[in-house]
C-alpha cells in the first residue's frame, strides 16, 4: 500500500513547548506523563561514539581527545566515501644485499567510488597496512592552543566572581547543582539549552573550557594579533590565467578541511572519518528515559524503546476518491491497535474556533459511534482458522475488520476551490498504563486504570480532482 511510504499524510499534534505536527512514526510516548513527545521536547544525551565503517566503540573521553574522529578509517577528500587500503608489490633492494631486489608490499589508500588514490596528492606508499597515515599538521595549532588556554582562564575567573556574588545572596545550604541559576550562561558557553548540568553528565561541547579544581592559576599572556600594512600582491596573470577546471576544488571539498581549505585538488589530503554517536532520549518533565539504545554498535535493538506506534492507535489513509468542491465524498481510513487489550476509540470533529485546527481546508464528518479494536495477538498470523470476532459492526461505518485493524469511512466536504484538502479531527482512546504501580486486589487479578487520551490528528488528502 502506498501509504506505507508516505507517512507524512497523517500528522499527530504534539503539545509540547512548541506545537509540532509530526507523523506518529517519529514520535515517542512517555508512559509516566501519558503524553506524546517529539524530538523537540525531549533532551538528547550522547550514549556512545562509534566509527561507522569499522564499528569500533570509543568512550566519550577518548573521542573528545581525538576530535571525534576514528583512528583507523579515512574519508576520501574528493567524494567523502570511505577509503580502502590496497597493496601493490614493488621491487625493493634487500637490506643485506643492495644488488638483489625482492618484492615488498607497499600500501596506498584508494577510493572505490571516484578512484582517488593517495598517490594523487603525492603521499608516498607506506609499508604498513594501517597506522602509517598521518594527517597534515595545522600550521596555526600552537597559536590556537595558547588562545584557548588564555580564554579558559579568563572564563574561569569570571565564573568564580559571579558565583561569589550569588553565594552571598543564596541560602548557604542549597546545593549548587539544583539551583535555577545554573541555567544562566557560562561565558563562552553555548546557551542554556545545552548546559543542563546533570550530575556526572555535562553536555556542553565546551565542557573542557573549565579548568580542573585546584589547578594553579598561572598567568598566561598572549600577544595580540599584528595587523600588517603590506599585503602580498596578487600574481600578474591572476585575471588572465585560464582556469584548470579539474584542479579546482569544490566548496564542499574545501570546507570539509577547514584547517587548510585548499583551492587545488592536488592538496586535498584525506581526513580521519567522523564518529557517529548513539543517543538516548529523556522526557524533560518526568526525567524518565524514552529511548535508550544498546551499547554495542553492531546491535540495532534498544534497551528502552517507548515509541508512540506501540501505544497509540495509528490512523492510515487507505483510499481517497475524487474530491470535489463542496461535494461530500467518503474516504477510507484504517485504524490499527498496537496494544494487546481491546481499545475503544471515538472520533470527534474539531469545534469552531479550536486553536489547534489551523490547517484544515475541508469539513469532515466522523462516525459518531465508538469503534472497538481487538487486541494485537502475536500468534494470530499463524492461526489460519481464526475465529470470527464477535463484534457487531455497522456496515456504513466499518468497511472491514482484520485482527487488530479496522477500516472505516469518514465523509469529507472540501470547502475551498483550489489547493490541497486537509482535514483534522480528535481521536480519543483508552490507555491502560502498565507503568503505574498495581495495587494488589483481593481477587488476585491486576487491574490497571484506564485513562482516556485525546490526540489531534490531521490528514492531508491531496489535491482536488480536476
Amino acid at each position, binding site marked *: 500500500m502506498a501509504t506505507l511510504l508516505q507517512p507524512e499524510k497523517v500528522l499527530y499534534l504534539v503539545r509540547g513547548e512548541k506545537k509540532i505536527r509530526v507523523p506518529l512514526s517519529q514520535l515517542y510516548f512517555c508512559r509516566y506523563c501519558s503524553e506524546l513527545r517529539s524530538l523537540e521536547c525531549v533532551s538528547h544525551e550522547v550514549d556512545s561514539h562509534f566509527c561507522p565503517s569499522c564499528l569500533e566503540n570509543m568512550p566519550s573521553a577518548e573521542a573528545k581527545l581525538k576530535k571525534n574522529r576514528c583512528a583507523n578509517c579515512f574519508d576520501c577528500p*574528493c*567524494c567523502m566515501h570511505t577509503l580502502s587500503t590496497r597493496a601493490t608489490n614493488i621491487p625493493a633492494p634487500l637490506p643485506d644485499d643492495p644488488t638483489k631486489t625482492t618484492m615488498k608490499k607497499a600500501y596506498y589508500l584508494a577510493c572505490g*567510488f*571516484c*578512484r*582517488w*588514490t593517495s*598517490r*594523487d596528492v603525492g603521499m608516498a606508499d607506506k609499508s604498513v597496512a594501517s597506522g602509517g597515515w598521518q594527517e597534515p599538521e595545522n600550521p596555526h595549532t600552537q597559536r590556537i592552543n595558547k588562545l584557548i588556554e588564555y580564554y579558559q582562564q579568563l572564563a574561569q575567573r569570571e565564573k568564580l566572581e559571579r558565583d561569589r556574588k550569588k553565594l552571598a545572596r543564596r541560602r548557604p545550604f542549597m546545593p549548587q547543582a539544583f539551583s535555577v541559576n545554573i541555567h544562566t550562561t557560562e561565558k563562552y558557553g553555548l546557551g542554556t539549552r545545552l548546559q543542563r548540568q546533570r550530575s556526572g553528565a555535562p553536555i556542553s561541547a565546551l565542557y573542557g573550557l573549565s579548568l580542573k579544581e585546584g589547578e594553579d592559576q598561572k598567568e598566561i599572556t598572549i600577544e595580540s594579533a599584528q595587523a600588517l600594512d603590506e599585503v602580498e600582491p596578487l600574481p600578474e596573470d591572476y585575471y588572465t590565467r585560464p582556469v584548470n577546471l*579539474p*584542479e579546482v576544488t569544490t566548496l564542499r571539498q574545501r570546507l570539509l578541511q577547514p584547517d587548510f581549505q585548499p583551492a587545488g*585538488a592536488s592538496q586535498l589530503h584525506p581526513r580521519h572519518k567522523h564518529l557517529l554517536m548513539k543517543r538516548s532520549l529523556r522526557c524533560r518533565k518526568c526525567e524518565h528515559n524514552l529511548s535508550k539504545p544498546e551499547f554495542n554498535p553492531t546491535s540495532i535493538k534498544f534497551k528502552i524503546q517507548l515509541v508512540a506506534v506501540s501505544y497509540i492507535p495509528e490512523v492510515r489513509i487507505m483510499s481517497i476518491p475524487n474530491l470535489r468542491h463542496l461535494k461530500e465524498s467518503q474516504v477510507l481510513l484504517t485504524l490499527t491497535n498496537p496494544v494487546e487489550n481491546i481499545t475503544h476509540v471515538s472520533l470527534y470533529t474539531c469545534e469552531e474556533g479550536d486553536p489547534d485546527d489551523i490547517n484544515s481546508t475541508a469539513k469532515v464528518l466522523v462516525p459518531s459511534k465508538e469503534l472497538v479494536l481487538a487486541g494485537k495477538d502475536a500468534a494470530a498470523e499463524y492461526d489460519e482458522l481464526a475465529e470470527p470476532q464477535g463484534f457487531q459492526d455497522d456496515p456504513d461505518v466499518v468497511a472491514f475488520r482484520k485482527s487488530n485493524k479496522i477500516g472505516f469511512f469518514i465523509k469529507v466536504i472540501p470547502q475551498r476551490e483550489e489547493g490541497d484538502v486537509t482535514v483534522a479531527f480528535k481521536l480519543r482512546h483508552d490507555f491502560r498504563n502498565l507503568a503505574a504501580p498495581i495495587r494488589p486486589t483481593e481477587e488476585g487479578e491486576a487491574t490497571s486504570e484506564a485513562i482516556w487520551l485525546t490526540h489531534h490528528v490531521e490528514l492531508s488528502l491531496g489535491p482536488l480532482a480536476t
Partner: protein
Amino acid sequence: LSEETESGVVKIAAGAVVCVESDIRGDVTIGARTVVHPKARIIAEAGPIVIGEGNLIEEQALIINSYPENILPDAEDVEPKTMSIGINNVFEVGCVSQALKIGDNNVIESKAEVGRNVILSSGCIVGACCQVNTCEVIQENTVIYGSECLRRVQTERPQPQTLQLDFLMKILPNYHHLKKTVKGNSTPARS
C-alpha cells in the same frame, strides 16, 4: 544490398575467447586476448567495429555502431563509419557504448552509457550509471563519477586487468562453448 552487408563476417583473432552465447552481428573484428562473456552484444549496424587486444567485455554489455537517430537506414549518403576500440578496455556488466572511437585502458563501469559523439581517449573511467552523451573528446585519465557525473582527473591510468583476463581465459572454456577463431599459430579453440 543492405541485407547482405548486414550480416558481415565476424573475424575473431586467435587467442580471443568469445562465448557462443554472445550476440555478434555485422562486420566485427576482435583482437587477440579479448574476452567476450556470454550475453554480451556487439552489433555493427551502420558500419564495422574493430576491437583491439586485451579487452574485457562482460555480460549484457552492448557495443553498437548504430545509425544516428535522425537518419533512416536506407538513405544513400550515409557512409559506414568504423567504430574502433583500442586495447585493454573494460566494458562492465550492462553498459552501453556507442562511442565511435575508444582509446586504450578505459573502463566503462556497470550500466554506464556512452553516446555516439563521445571520444574516449586513454585511461578514462566512466562510473557506474553515468550517462555521457555530450559531443566532446574526454581528456586522458578522466574519471566521471557520481549521480551528477562529476569529473576529476587522475594522475595515473587504471591498470590493465591482466590477472582477470588470464583467469577468464582459463576458466570460461570449461563452462562455455566458444566461437571459432580465424586460423592462427596456436591451436584453435573448440567450437
